[in-house]
């Protein structure tokens, strides 16, 4: 557990978070490994885990009729897979697949939600850390939607 606390404390998501909060979050954490092409989760599954990627790469994908699955984002070292755990109905909206050997810290979302309900200070601290990630991805999505690279004739 001590190792997980240290890893969590060093992750940029938890940077500056007080030791008692890190200990609370570490109580919901475990180490995980995904082999290449192994799925972390599928669309519509319950959003019960959050993954802090330590090493490797995870592709976020959506199945599209006639085109198969399309990757719309990849998440790498130091980044987070899964923001849907924050809000009801707590279900994933896409598939997540490791494209290479991926090591991550998995945080039990139910456990974390319960601890945030019980301790609003912890909840607020975590919200302050997850919201910038959400905003950054929203900004990136806006640019992606603009499809700025003109197509040749």
């Amino acid at each position, binding site marked *: 557990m001590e190792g997980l606390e240290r890893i969590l404390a060093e992750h940029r998501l938890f940077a500056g978070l007080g030791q008692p909060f890190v200990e609370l979050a570490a109580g919901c954490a475990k180490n995980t490994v995904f082999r290449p092409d192994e799925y972390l989760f599928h669309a519509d599954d319950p959003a019960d885990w959050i993954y802090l990627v330590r090493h490797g790469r995870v592709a976020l994908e959506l199945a599209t009729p006639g085109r198969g*699955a399309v*990757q*719309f984002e990849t998440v*790498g070292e130091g980044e987070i897979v899964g923001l849907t755990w924050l809000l009801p109905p707590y279900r994933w909206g896409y598939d997540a697949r490791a*494209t290479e050997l991926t090591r991550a810290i998995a945080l039990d979302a139910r456990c974390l939600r319960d601890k945030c309900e019980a301790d609003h200070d912890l909840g607020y601290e975590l919200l302050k850390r997850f919201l910038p990630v959400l905003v950054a991805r929203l900004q990136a999505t806006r*640019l992606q939607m603009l499809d*700025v*690279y*003109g197509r*040749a004739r």
Partner: protein
Amino acid sequence: MAALAEAALAAADPMVPRIVRVRKRTRDLPGHATLELVPADGAPLPRYRPGQFTMLYAFGVGEIPVSISGDASDGSRLVQTVRSVGAVSEAVTQLKVGDVLGLRGPFGSAWPTEELAGQDVVVVAGGLGLAPLRPSIYHLLANRDRFGKVVVLYGTRGPEEILYRRQLETWRKRLDLQIEVTVDHAGVGWRGNVGVVTRLIPRVSVDVANATALVCGPEVMMRFTAAGLHDLGLPESSIWVSLERNMKCAIGLCGHCQFSGLFACKDGAVVRYDRVRRLMGMREI
């Protein structure tokens, strides 16, 4: 003799084109061509600096501005990459080896490569924006010991639209260069990064107090990129962008490329971001 006289006239008058010949044509991507041009009039090619452009004249069709994408230290040929988006660029991309065309220039400002000595350098390119940045990358790599960290971030629409793909793969093997490529969307077979180029910026680790960024791509992409670099800690005065406007005369006379108080052809295309940030956000310009 007559050809040499015409070359002398062209050298004296920037509105008079010289005649150059296509020595080699490479199809980088569908609808794109990289042309190696050599003199057809006996006079040496003009020297240029990374970031400058020329006006290429497809006889009987028209003239367009085209970024120089080759190595500025190689004076024997002029390398330019064109994408077919209109009648003239279509005609230029269809030129074959041995065909001739008109050339004016080089024109415009350049990337501040000489001022980068001792600094970390971040190059951010989007789509065809890699073409005008490639001369600066050649310069950085040829004089590698003069610079700190060199980082190249490149984003484009999909894996099938990666420009200079083989060269990027070759550069990627260098230990003295961090190079990251991303695409906006990809099928499941793609093993690289997916997401817009700005998503790569947090991975950059440079001394922001002593770093300069060179950015080229669609204007919206440059704005988002500059914002991301600023969030990283780079001052706007350390970010350079390349503006694309409707360049016609290329010498600041006709006004077609006027950008508020600037002429993109003469005062740009390369400008410091803090000079144009406010203007780039104005929908009237």
